[in-house]
């Protein structure tokens, strides 16, 4: 079933949802939000697109295969844990850059970890939703 209303609305909602997911991701370190929620919102955006059009087109606008998103996300999250070890600290010890960056605040490995979570959650959710929708 194709709905003109839904597909038109999706054109505006998709970028908004993606922007919001990044907002939630960056906000997450000290306030409610974070990589997990962000990843879910982002996958909701692509799911909406898949509902409005079809799964094939949703896959096409996704820059990476969802499975690769999982791997990339895990890789980034693990790397964030390893950075601390470079300074001789135990695994997963946080490392911070002292400079403040507008909007984001202090940069550090927790942000990197959250980005990893964001990608992994998005990858998992989309893998599940797309496979179910294609059945």
């Amino acid at each position, binding site marked *: 079933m194709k709905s003109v209303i839904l597909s038109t609305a999706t054109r505006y909602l998709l970028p908004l949802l993606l922007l919001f997911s990044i907002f939630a991701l960056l906000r997450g370190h000290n306030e409610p939000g974070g990589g997990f929620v962000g990843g879910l919102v982002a996958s909701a955006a692509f799911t909406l697109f898949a509902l409005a059009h079809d799964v094939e087109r949703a896959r096409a606008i996704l820059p990476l295969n969802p499975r690769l998103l999982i*791997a990339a996300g895990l890789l980034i999250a693990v790397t964030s844990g390893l950075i*601390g070890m470079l300074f001789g600290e135990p695994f997963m010890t946080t490392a911070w850059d002292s400079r403040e960056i507008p909007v984001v605040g202090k940069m550090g490995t927790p942000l990197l970890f959250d980005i990893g979570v964001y990608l992994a959650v998005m990858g998992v959710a989309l893998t599940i939703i797309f496979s179910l929708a294609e059945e």
Partner: protein
Amino acid sequence: MNGLLILPILIPLMTAIALVLAWNHRAIQRRISVAGALILFLAAIGLLTSVSSDGIAVVQIGDWPAPFGITLVADLFSAIMVTMTGLMGLAVAVYSLSSMDAPRESFGYYPLFHVLLMGVNGAFLTGDMFNLYVWFEVMLIASFVLMALGGERVQLEGAIKYVTINLVSSALFLTAIGILYSVAGTLNMADLAQRLNSGDVDPGMVTALSMMFLIAFGIKAAVFPLFFWLPASYHTPPVAVTAIFSGLLTKVGVYSLIRVFTLIFLRDVDYTHTLILVIAGFTMVTGVLGAVAQTGFRRLLSFHIVSQIGYLLMGLGLFTELALAGTVFFMVHVIIAKSALFLVSGAVYQIAGTYDLKKLGGLYKSHVGLSMMFLFPALSLAGIPPLSGFWAKLTLVRAGLETEEYAIVAVALGVSILTLFSMMKIWAEAFWKDRPESDEAASDGLPELRTSRAWLALVAPIIALGALTIVLGIAAEPFFVLARDAARQLLDPASYIQAVLGGTP
């Protein structure tokens, strides 16, 4: 060494990530899988040597101090278990190359396999109760998928039983953790050991809690009377999966039992450890009686897993240094011997196309080498000198005699004879008797063993494991010394507590 302790968890994770990145390239996946398993094994040996020379190793993850953050601890027992995981991982990774079918390979068998190894290693290394639960879940979720992957009818039937019973056990485990936290206010194992044994906690409450953990871990370890899910499900997935499950998953349950009942629940040793001893006896007997009645190669071996778990618990129940040393030695022995037998059953299946002992036969005539590869681990399992099983059982029996627990000793010896009987049954049916006429060999979709390289990947792990049971038997002394040191550490919770809570680097 900080880095060495995290490696057994990181290496399988990195391998799994690399495997997912190479999802559509089977040939590359196979290489990555073996390479990852090899590196893991080497890292595990590194950890073992480091722990045996420098004592208990501890890492506070994220640099959060001990009772608050997550602690990774490797004492000798953990390090030995991690090494066994590495060994089994390597053996089964090689074996999978020529026993796993293409559809399973392309639906993520290899990444899941390494995630499973990560979960197992995490469970062996963690020093925190809740973290142990998390590693159990990692391991179980990977095992659920491995069990059902392929989607054959019998497999799904087995998987449903397996998943249901394990979810019950996990729920119980989590409930017990919740109560434990409300009683003690901490979940760090070392901290728990201190608080629960300090006197300001009601001893009745501690014993009640210990029973909850006994049931939760008992289901995972497949002890009497909670073992029924194991023979109902273990014979359904491909042999490589069964071998890694039998080698590692139930052993994680036993490991957890040993850990909590040597470190944390020591308030009422008379009651709890006697109960464990009784359970051990029943587990041995029911397991072996179930095995004697079976006619399927893998079903028979599955019942034997249960029976061997009884021996492992016997050492814990006796609770002396010698007994625990026996348990550690037995653990190493049984992981190697049992997995070797499962791998042989897979090789037999690829040759003859069936697991049914009635339809098998004549393998001694056609495959003498393979028959020998079966015979040594089988005799070792039954406890024939000078193979590894003999020393393991001798130690346990001696420990039993020293503590004057004659009943369990009698059970252990009787079960040994029945074990020998059922091993000889496989030998007589599958290898010795003539192959029954009429049946045509049916190999359904398994990779053909035309090339000698494929054959090599199949038998090399079996030969290596079989050789290890012989080496463990003939040169038992160094391994036994190691097991004894591990047991000494287990019986000295103070050193564990000291390593985790005080004097950390």
